């Protein structure tokens, strides 16, 4: 259990600035998810928290105590590596119990904990195997087991489920959620997977190119993205963003249609308009704001994604219910509901709605 603070943290390799001015307060027991495109610095941030990478500038505190110069072992944090990092010469049981072996915990306690963790992770039958005799998914679970065997102040996960198949991934996701409830430990979790981020997180931190773009609850990020990057990063399929021109009372699309946005006071500044695929309303051809012709219709069972060409605007994705009647090649109209529209200024920041 731990409260963590990052204050003005900067990471530089030589002259390359990898992370800039990171400020983040993490409450005791909070589940924080770090997301961002590949190479944006997620692993680096995690490694600085773990103590594996020196912090170039700024401070990192756990429960108010400055940690910058503390060795990893003195921080009492467990970590699951992106690469698993299993000890190849130790069997599964010893891999999992290694931290207790190092702390010289009683052998019986270690054995019972290992057995329990192996049970939870479905590894009971494999405890005397070496890592090289395990599949990728099994290795990943051993790596998880090595972290959950102890009671650290905090857990760090670097894409721990990236190598599992879909079913196992869902199962492990639930297991992590359960573990978080049971241990109520502080957790920081890096992932590329939207569903993991949205379902697990108390708060999500969106990173891009070394900068924090936005910090907020999953619904915050979904409903009130701070800028175009966050708007398009969160949500699947991604938000449609089209160029517009600001008007006094709304915005004008390239095809001439005007979407009136009475609750956006600064609509004049708008340079682009964003609408999530699930918020576009399908209407009869000739009605609504846009005229679209379906290009590809992807039926996913519960939903259908329609990729459509819109005259004068470009490609737009529409999400409709599973048994939609639209077929590829068909023309239809689209209405943009003003209350679901996001507008962004020319530098990409969101222009706020009046609440």
């Amino acid at each position, binding site marked *: 259990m731990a409260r963590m603070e990052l204050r003005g943290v900067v990471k530089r390799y030589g002259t390359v600035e990898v992370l800039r001015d990171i400020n983040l307060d993490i409450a005791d027991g909070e589940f924080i998810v770090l997301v961002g495109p590949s190479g944006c610095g997620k692993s680096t941030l995690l490694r600085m928290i773990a103590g594996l990478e020196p912090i170039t500038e700024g401070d990192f505190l756990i429960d108010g105590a400055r940690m910058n110069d503390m060795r*990893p072992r003195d921080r009492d944090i467990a970590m699951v*590596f992106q690469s698993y990092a299993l000890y*190849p010469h130790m069997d599964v049981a010893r891999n999992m119990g290694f931290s207790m072996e190092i702390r010289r915990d009683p052998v019986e306690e270690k054995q019972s904990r290992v057995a329990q963790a192996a049970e939870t992770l479905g590894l009971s039958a494999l405890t005397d195997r*070496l890592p090289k005799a395990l599949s990728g998914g099994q290795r990943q679970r051993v790596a998880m087991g*090595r972290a959950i065997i102890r009671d650290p102040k905090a857990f760090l996960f670097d894409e721990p489920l990236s190598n599992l198949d879909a079913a196992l991934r869902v199962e492990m996701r639930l297991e992590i959620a359960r573990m978080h409830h049971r241990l109520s430990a502080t957790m920081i979790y890096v992932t590329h997977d939207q569903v993991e981020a949205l379902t697990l997180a108390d708060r999500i931190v969106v990173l891009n190119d070394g900068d924090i773009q936005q910090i907020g609850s999953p619904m915050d990020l979904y409903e009130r993205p701070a800028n175009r990057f966050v708007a398009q990063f969160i949500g699947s399929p991604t938000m449609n963003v089209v160029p517009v021109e600001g008007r006094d009372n709304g915005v004008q699309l390239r095809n001439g249609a005007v979407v009136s946005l009475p609750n956006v006071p600064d609509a004049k500044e708008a340079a682009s308009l964003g609408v999530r695929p699930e918020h576009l309303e399908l209407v009869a051809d000739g009605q609504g704001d846009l005229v679209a012709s379906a290009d590809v219709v992807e039926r996913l069972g519960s939903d259908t994604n329609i990729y459509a060409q819109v005259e004068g605007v470009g490609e737009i994705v529409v999400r409709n219910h599973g048994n939609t009647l639209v077929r590829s090649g068909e023309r239809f109209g689209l209405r943009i509901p003003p209350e679901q529209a996001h507008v962004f200024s020319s530098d990409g920041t969101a222009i706020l709605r009046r609440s």
Partner: protein
Amino acid sequence: MSVTRSNPILTVGKYLALSGYLVFALFPLYWLVKIAITPDRLIFTEGTDLWPSSTTLDNFRTVIFQTDFMAFFGNSLYVSLGTAAVTTLIAAGAGYAFSRFDFGGKKVIVAIMLITQMFPLLMIIAPIYKIVSSLGMLNSLTSLIVVYTAFNIPFATFLMQSFFDAIPKDLEEAAMMDGCTRFQALRKVIVPLTLPGLGATLGFVFTAAWSELLFALMLISDNASMTFPVGLLTFVSRFSVDWGQMMAAGSLALIPSCLFFIFIQRYLVQGLTSGAVKG
């Protein structure tokens, strides 16, 4: 039907090439042993036959019981084991540092180590002789260990570094997250995985020291501290060469190297780190 079944002609060709190489590489050794077991009187009459008409172990008996051979052998063993142990220890430490740490002067040190490998040995024999003699260490086996160690360290260090480089950094970091100090991580995780590297380095340095002649010849003149290669030259007298005994001694000299490699070869098998990380 297996798609990957290999072409029988290719297989035969492969084995032909392999046996050709083996014959080429092993023939001198075969000749060594053959002459060692050929009775003296037949050496010149049946010199080019592949197998002598009668064989004897007399040469071995003479070499072991009537010459200083066993003393040379002991000296060589002492020098080679000493050199291998000291060199490997230092090279492992240096290799680990080169592989894992960034420190000032790293490039300079690497450059200097490379430069030391560029000089022909003949150029530095005189200065080395001067240094050793002014230290009063001529005719001492320790001086040989020191000199051999100095010469083998650069290569051994690069060798060890490449073995450390092959071990993912994540493993030590995981160990440190699990509560190890850096030294504990080294001892419990890295060293067990470096055993093949240590074995290879030990073997390499041992063999190099075992067969070194030039320095041993220059620095040792006393019969009691001669190493084996120098001792072999005593079979060459002013008027004749005792081929049979020389070859018998040579065959015996092969034994430690063979034993050594049989002993370390199980550490030389690859794949000790497989399964550690993704991919």
